[in-house]
């Protein structure tokens, strides 16, 4: 179990720092409440609404494109770490992988996924 002490320490540190920030902000901070400030925080949209409202499909497209690049990065990192051991084979395989991903991106671009009207 010894090797998990580091994990426990990082949990405590993370919790402590986050807790201290919340506590210090509420203790030291000056309060000038306004309607917007009192509303629950949610990235740009109304936090509570009845389901069934319409959501523009543009957000979905952007999210998909984000996932595309995200996956690319997820695989690029471990590849970069062992690049020297796998050599040319690895380079070719990564090229194939990137080629397929980029084909998807070109398709999305070509069909107007990046145009925000």
């Amino acid at each position: 179990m010894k090797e998990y002490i580091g994990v426990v320490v990082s949990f405590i540190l993370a919790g402590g720092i986050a807790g201290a920030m919340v506590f210090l902000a509420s203790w030291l901070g000056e309060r000038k409440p306004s309607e917007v400030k009192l509303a629950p925080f949610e990235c740009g949209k109304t936090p509570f609404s009845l389901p069934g409202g319409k959501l523009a499909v543009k957000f979905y497209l952007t999210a998909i494109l984000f996932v595309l690049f995200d996956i690319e990065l997820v695989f690029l990192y471990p590849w970069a770490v062992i690049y020297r051991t796998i050599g040319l084979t690895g380079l070719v395989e990564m090229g194939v992988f990137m080629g397929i991903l980029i084909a998807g991106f070109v398709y999305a671009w070509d069909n107007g996924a990046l145009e925000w009207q």
Partner: protein
Amino acid sequence: MIGPDLADVKLLWPELILLTMSLGLILSASRIRKGLKASTATLVAGFASILVYRWPLVEGARAGFGDMIIIDNYSQFFKVLIASALILIVLLSARRVETDNVRAGEYYALLLLASIGMMLAVSSTDLIPLYLGLELTTICSYILVGTTVERRTSNEAATKYFLLSAFTSALLLYGIALIYGTTGSTSFDAVASFFSGTEGGNNKLILMAIGLVVAGLAFKIAAVPFHSWAPDAYEGASAPIAAFLATASKAAGLAVLGRICISAFSEESHLLSLILATMAALSIIVGSIIAISQTNIKRLLAYSSISHAGYALLGLLPGTAEGISATMTYVFIYVFMTLGAFGVVTALGRRGERIDGYEGLARQQPVTALLMLIFLLALTGIPPTGGFIAKFVVILSALNAGYFTLAVLAVACSVVSAFVYLRVAVLMYMKEPQMDEAPGYPIMISAVLLLSALVTVIGGILPSVLNFWEAVP
């Protein structure tokens, strides 16, 4: 050397051809206006991949990619079958793509990608590429089921299929995780040698792992109790896509199940055959009986495909090479007779969807009615057709393995299903036409119907040609 050898790429030439073509279609999708160009391109890729297969293999089985992919006669048989089904489905799709306003580039690219997924799955000897292959197939299938966006039933079918399938994919993955947890490997050989080494081991965990993996695969072949998606998905999808799900997808699922039964789980055969026998019995009963009350022909064929999955599972019960080869014969005949039946549905267009659309068809389109009769007789399993041979070999293999009750049940349900199929035949031949004559259909659809009928009939008259593969994993 850590990474796989580049020479392994040679093992997957056929898949690479299909992949290149599908990427080409994706890249030029916005510029493809005529569906015909895209379908021709897909056909060329399909034929090229079949030519490259070199089947049967002369030099014996070859493994590659860190022993995750194997190329043997078993995998080549199913790959050629999947590629043939792909070609026939592309031929069937041509008219629907034009009339339903489907974007041709994406449609054919997804068909190609789904086929590549199946081909990878049937040649995997490791649970990870197997899962990846099946996922590639199902993710493409969700979109294909929902391609006709304007039709509400199509959207409903795609949503239902997606939700249920995503759930069972999670089950499959969980089963794979448990197998890795108990055996420490995902490779079929390593799993099998672990099972043969342990005396009992952690029985409950093994039972759960095998149960989950088999459940995930049973969903792909729509065996009861994992069948509920099939009627809705087939009804909502356009007829060629329903045919794709019913034939290629099911063949791939059975191939994977067969390989897993005979390699990875062969030491647990008592457990496995109990699960498979239950599923086979339930599929045969439920599929045959519920089909009686269907009025939509695609739903009827869906229930028929469920009962056929049950029959095909009979061959996997003994866990022997003869059993697997019986299932291979069954799948081969099943693919062509089902493709033929769905081909007739496609050919008749809107009229072909409902069962009363077949009233008096023999008077209006005698050739189409005759071909449909052949497929219906084959699906029932009546002697001059290949359907009889197919049912005969699987029931025989179940009998040889000592499943007497199950064999009797299979024969009894065959009689029940005769009522289902022959009802359509009676409508075609003994009723007066109620509807206007359906418009003619293009030569591509006729080619599919004739080819399927030819294979179905030859399989019945000369059953010895069906034994030309001796290709068990």
